[in-house]
């Protein structure tokens, strides 16, 4: 079997007494689009931050193309980071930079490209996400939430990364804009052939963009399979989550009035 593009083995991470990741295993093949679903506080974001090196796992292994990331310094991780793209939940655009500078940031910050050249790339990438050159010189604060997400997506794909991560790409958007973002993600991924890992609790979005869905619960992957099989997963946790039922094995700590 070919080596997975991304491989997480036995990843654990705790915050004080709270054990968020408890031995998480997940393999993602090259060119595959995997969506990790799960409720709030189950460890989705922590998993993503561990892969990106924003958090250091307590134990376990995270490999990209077989290269170990855990325990590596920023400088050692940098060549790998250059092959990654990331769309943040709130887009995380830099307030102090104009839209085109945000999109071109990954190209100019490393000195890989001159500003004029990077500006041309930014125009192309913005066009790919359906934004015209009229937004180029706007500041992020002048854009709507949906436009910010699209600029964030343009920034994520600007360096033609091999792997793209999406953190709750449709959260906070209206259904139409959510669908537009999903379509853009599918298009971009198809065009670039990138491997993608998305975390979300939006099932419509998951069904649309995933080749394979994995469910995280209490810091472990409790089910993973092709998107077409999720309805017949045979897993009570998955069934409860995808149908949004109150009754089931997943108990939320909510005080009833």
């Amino acid at each position: 079997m070919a080596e997975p593009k991304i491989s997480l083995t036995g990843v654990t991470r705790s915050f004080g007494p709270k054990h968020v990741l408890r031995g998480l295993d997940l393999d993602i093949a090259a060119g595959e689009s995997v969506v990790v679903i799960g409720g709030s506080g189950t460890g989705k974001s922590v998993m993503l931050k561990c892969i990106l090196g924003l958090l250091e796992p307590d134990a376990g292994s995270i490999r990209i193309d077989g290269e170990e990331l855990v325990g590596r310094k920023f400088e050692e991780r940098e060549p790998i980071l250059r092959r990654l793209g990331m769309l943040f939940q709130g887009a995380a655009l830099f307030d102090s930079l104009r839209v085109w500078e945000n999109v071109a940031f990954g190209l100019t910050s490393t000195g890989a490209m001159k500003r004029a050249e990077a500006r041309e790339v930014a125009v192309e990438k913005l066009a790919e996400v359906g934004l015209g050159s009229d937004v180029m010189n706007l500041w992020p604060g002048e854009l709507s939430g949906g436009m910010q997400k699209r600029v964030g997506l343009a920034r994520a794909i600007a360096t033609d990364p091999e792997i793209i991560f999406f953190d709750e790409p449709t959260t906070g958007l209206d259904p139409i804009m959510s669908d537009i973002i999903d379509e853009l993600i599918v298009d971009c991924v198809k065009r670039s052939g990138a491997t993608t890992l998305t975390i979300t609790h939006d099932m419509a979005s998951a069904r649309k963009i995933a080749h394979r869905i994995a469910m995280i619960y209490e810091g472990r992957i409790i089910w993973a399979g092709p998107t077409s099989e999720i309805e017949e997963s045979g897993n009570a946790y998955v069934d409860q989550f995808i149908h949004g039922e109150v009754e089931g094995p997943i108990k939320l700590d909510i005080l009833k009035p």
Partner: protein
Amino acid sequence: MPWNPLQLIGHVVLAFMATTGRLAIFTGNGVRNSVLPPFYFRLIGRQMLFIGYYSLPVVGLTALFTGMVLALQIFIGSERFNAENAVATIVVIGITRELGPVLGGLMVAGRVSSAMAAEIGTMRVTEQIDALTTLSTNPFKYLVAPRLIAGVTMMPLLVIIADIIGVYGGYLVGTQKLGFNAGSYLTNTFEFLEVIDVVSGLVKAAVFGFIIALMGCYHGFNSTGGAQGVGRATTNAVVSASILILVANYLVTEIFFAGR
């Protein structure tokens, strides 16, 4: 559970040690990234403009009125034992050694540390700092190093200007209100002024510039909890920078004093 004073002391000591350790690591990282290439010259220039040029009015006004008040107060004091001629000398030494750097530092701390903490804190809570990392940009190099470099280089320049304006403030009051002859006031100003008076003030300014930038960056970088966290970081940055400036002022003065 009964209240245990030993437990409380233990908590406080541990929290203090943890904060000191975090700050030491942050400082080490900041200094390392400030002296090793690559350098973001555009960002360094922007910070120099922000810390240096835009602080000029507030530092200039502070120095002017400090020099004026100093001349008045020293005149009142020295008149009691017929030492009015010492006014010019004491004003220039007071301004260059002490009041220029300290008051300038405190004013810049209020203006700059808070702005840095608010900007970096907002970047932290909106995941912009995480975004920098994912775009293979070291946040220390991009955010902290330019501010530290600008702080250390701009504060001495600001203090030189503050010294000149402060001395001019004393001169104005001395010649216009206290009846000193302009020529003799200037002679008294420069006759007893030593290079070490100015140099010690400039060394203090560089140290204060470092503290101001470091506290702004540290509190911004470690802010948590949304808008409230950013507000707390801003307050902590100004308070800690101001206190550290006063502590560092004593230590630097002690070092220069020991050399005499």
